[in-house]
C-alpha cells in the first residue's frame, strides 16, 4: 500500500482522493505519508517558519509571518527525475 500511496501522490492526487481510491481511512493515508517522509520519498515543505526567522527585516517588520497548521509535502526530487526520465 505504501508504494501505491506514493504512486498516487506522484500523480498529484490529494489525501482524500487516495483514501477513496485505496478504501482506507484518511488518517492511514496521512500515516503512510509520514512513513514515506521518514524514508525520504516525500519531503515536508516548511510553510514559512524558516523565511521569517531568517528575514533581515524581522526586527522591525510590520508583523506577520503566517502560521500555517496543515503539513505540506512534495514528492522528493529524485523520484520526479526518475519518473520523467523514463
Amino acid at each position: 500500500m505504501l508504494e501505491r500511496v506514493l504512486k498516487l501522490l506522484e500523480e498529484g492526487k490529494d489525501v482524500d482522493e487516495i483514501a477513496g481510491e485505496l478504501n482506507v481511512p484518511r488518517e492511514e493515508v496521512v500515516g503512510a505519508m509520514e512513513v514515506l517522509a521518514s524514508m525520504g520519498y516525500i519531503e515536508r515543505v516548511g510553510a514559512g517558519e524558516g523565511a521569517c526567522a531568517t528575514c533581515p527585516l524581522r526586527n522591525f517588520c510590520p508583523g506577520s509571518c503566517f502560521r500555517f497548521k496543515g503539513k505540506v509535502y512534495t514528492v522528493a526530487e529524485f523520484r520526479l527525475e526518475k519518473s520523467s526520465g523514463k
Partner: protein
Amino acid sequence: MAMKVVALAGNPNVGKTTIFNALTGLRQHVGNWPGVTVEKKEGVLEYNGQKFLVVDLPGTYSLTAHSIDELVARDFLLKGSADVVVNVVDATALMRNLFLTMEILEMGLNNVIIALSKVDLAEKHGIEINVKRMEEVLGVPVVPVNGKEGVGLEELKEKIYEMANGVLHERPVVPKYDPEVEREIEHITGVLQGTPLAEKYSLRWLAIKLLQRDDSVIKLVLRHLGSEKLDEIMGHIAEVEERYKRAMDLIIASQKYEFIDNLMHRFVRYTKEEGESFSDQLDSVLTHPVYGLIALFGVFYLVFKFVFVFGLPLQELLDNAFSSFGEWLAPHIANEALRGLIVDGIIAGVGSVLSFFPLVFLLFLALSVLEDVGYMARAAVVMEKIMRKFGLPGKSFIPLVLAFGCNVPAVMATRTLDDERDRLVTMLVNPLIPCSARLSVISFLAAAFFAGHQALTAVSIYATAVLMALLVAWLLSRFVIKGEESPFIIELPEYLIPSWKTVTLHSWERSKEFIKKAGTIILLGSMAIWYLSSYPVQMGTGGSYAERLGMFFEPYMRLMGLDWKAAVSLLFGIIAKENVISTYGIIYGSEEAIVGAMTPLQAYVLAMVTTLYVPCIATIGAIRAESNWKWAAFTVVYMIALASIVGIIVWNVGSALGY
C-alpha cells in the same frame, strides 16, 4: 542491584510522554542523549516495591535511521538496553503505528508490550479493536490505556513488572514478505550464519536492513566480516534490485504495510459512520475551487467587516487623541521650526499611522483565529488549485501566502522552489500581493471615504491585486518555459476551537512590530516629509521642495485623476507603504481636510495604485539579493506600468459612470 530499564517507543504524538508522566510522576530527569542534541527523558517507576528506570525514546515513524531521532531510538533498542519495551500505539492510526511495531519486532525483541493509547478517540472515530484477538495475532501483550485519565495504567505496570521479571513470555509475530524477497533474506542470512554478528543481532533483521541498503548496518557488517564478504552480499543485492527495477527499501516497506493490513483485518473493524462527517462535508465545500473561492471572499469580507466595525471607533479615538496632544503641545514649544517638526511633522505623520493600530491588531486577531480554527489551510488549498490553473507551481503558494504579511520574507521563501524559472515568476509577482503595510493605507482610505462600505471596498482592492498577481504569473509563465510540475500535498489539520491565550498573544506579537516600525521608519519618513514641505518656503506657495517634486509628476498623475500630493505620497511610499498615510497627514494636517479635498473615486484610485505600484525598498532589495538587479528593475517597471493602467482605467470608467 541495578534498576531494570523500561523504554517507551512509538510514533510522535501518540501519548508517550503522557504515559511516561503517569508512570513516573514527578521523579523525572531531562538530559540529552550522548553526543546529540536529542532530549532524553528518564524517570523512576516503583511497582510492587521494585524500582524501574523509565526512558522516553524519541518519537519516530520507522527505524530506518534516516534521522538522528530514529538512530537514537534504534540504537537503544538494538543494544538490548531495555529490559522491557513499551511500544505506545495510537489506536486512531493503527497501520502507521504498527509499522513501527513491526520494525521493532523484526529486530528480534521478545520483551515488547503494546500500550494501546487514545482508545477513547478511536471509539469516537468508529474504530473497533478486539484487544484479545490483537494480542493473539501480534503475539505480544496489549494493554488499552488512556494516559490522560489514568485508565489501564495499573495493568500496564503489572505487565511491565511481569515482563521484567521473566514471568511473562511472548512469541511475537514478525513480518513476512513475498517469496522472492524471503529467498533473498534467507540467502543473506546464510552468509551471515556462524559469524560473530549472529550472537548479537537477529540475522533476519540484519539481512533485511542490508537489502534496504542501510548505511549503519553496512558499516557494521564491514567491521565484523571485512570487505570481501560484504562485497559478495552487496553484489547479490545489486542483482536483486536489477531484477526488481525498484529500490528494495520501498518494496520491503510496502510489503510490510501489506502484511500489517492483513493482520489488522483479524482484529479491527471500521464501523460505518453514517455518511460523511460534518468536518468532511465542510472540507469539500471549503476546498472546492468554486464554492471554496466564494467562501474565501465571504470569510474575508466578514474579517474586514469585523475589523472596521470594532476598529474604526478606536482609530478615531486615537486619531483625535494625537491631534489634541499636538494642539496642547504646540504652545509649549517656543522655537518655530522645532514646533513645526514635532507637531506638524512627527505627531501628524506618525500619529496618523499609529492610529491604525487597532485595525492592524484586530486583523491579526481575526487571522490568528482563522489559522487556529484550521481555516487558513483550507483557504490555501483553494488558492493552490487556482494558482495551478494560472501556471504557478503548487509550491509557490507558500511565498504568496506569506506575502499578505510582508513581501520580504515571502521573496526569500521562494528558495523552497527548486526550479529556477518557477522561482523567478513567484518572486516577481510576489509584490503584487498586498502586504499588511498596504492594509493600513487601504483601510485609511476605505474608512475615510466609504463609510458603511469599508469592508467591501477593501475586499475589492485585495481581490483585484490577487487577480493581477495571477494574470501576471500567467503571462510570465507563458513566456518562460515551465519546469516539471511537482505534486504538492496539503494535509488538512482538524478543526479546532482556538485558545484565546495563544491567539491574543500571537496577534500582539505581530502588531507590536507595527508600533516599532512607526517609531523608526515612519518617524524618519515623517521628519523628511515635513522638511520637504516646509523648506525652502512653506507649502502652499508652490515653492516648497515637496510641491516642486510633486508638480513634476502631476501631469502624469492627472491621467488617473490624482494630483501632486498623491505623487509625493507615493514617492515616500516606496520607502514604506505606510508613508502614504503619513504624507497625507502632514500635507493636509487632518483627516477632514483630506476628505474635503478628494472624491471617493479619487480615493479608490489612490488605494488601488498604492497597492499595485512598485514594491517598497526592502522588497526591491530582497528581489535583487535573491536574483539580480535587472529582475529587480524589471519588477519596478512592470508594476509602475500595471498600476498606471489599472489607475487610468478605474478613473476613466468611474468618471464615465458618474462617480
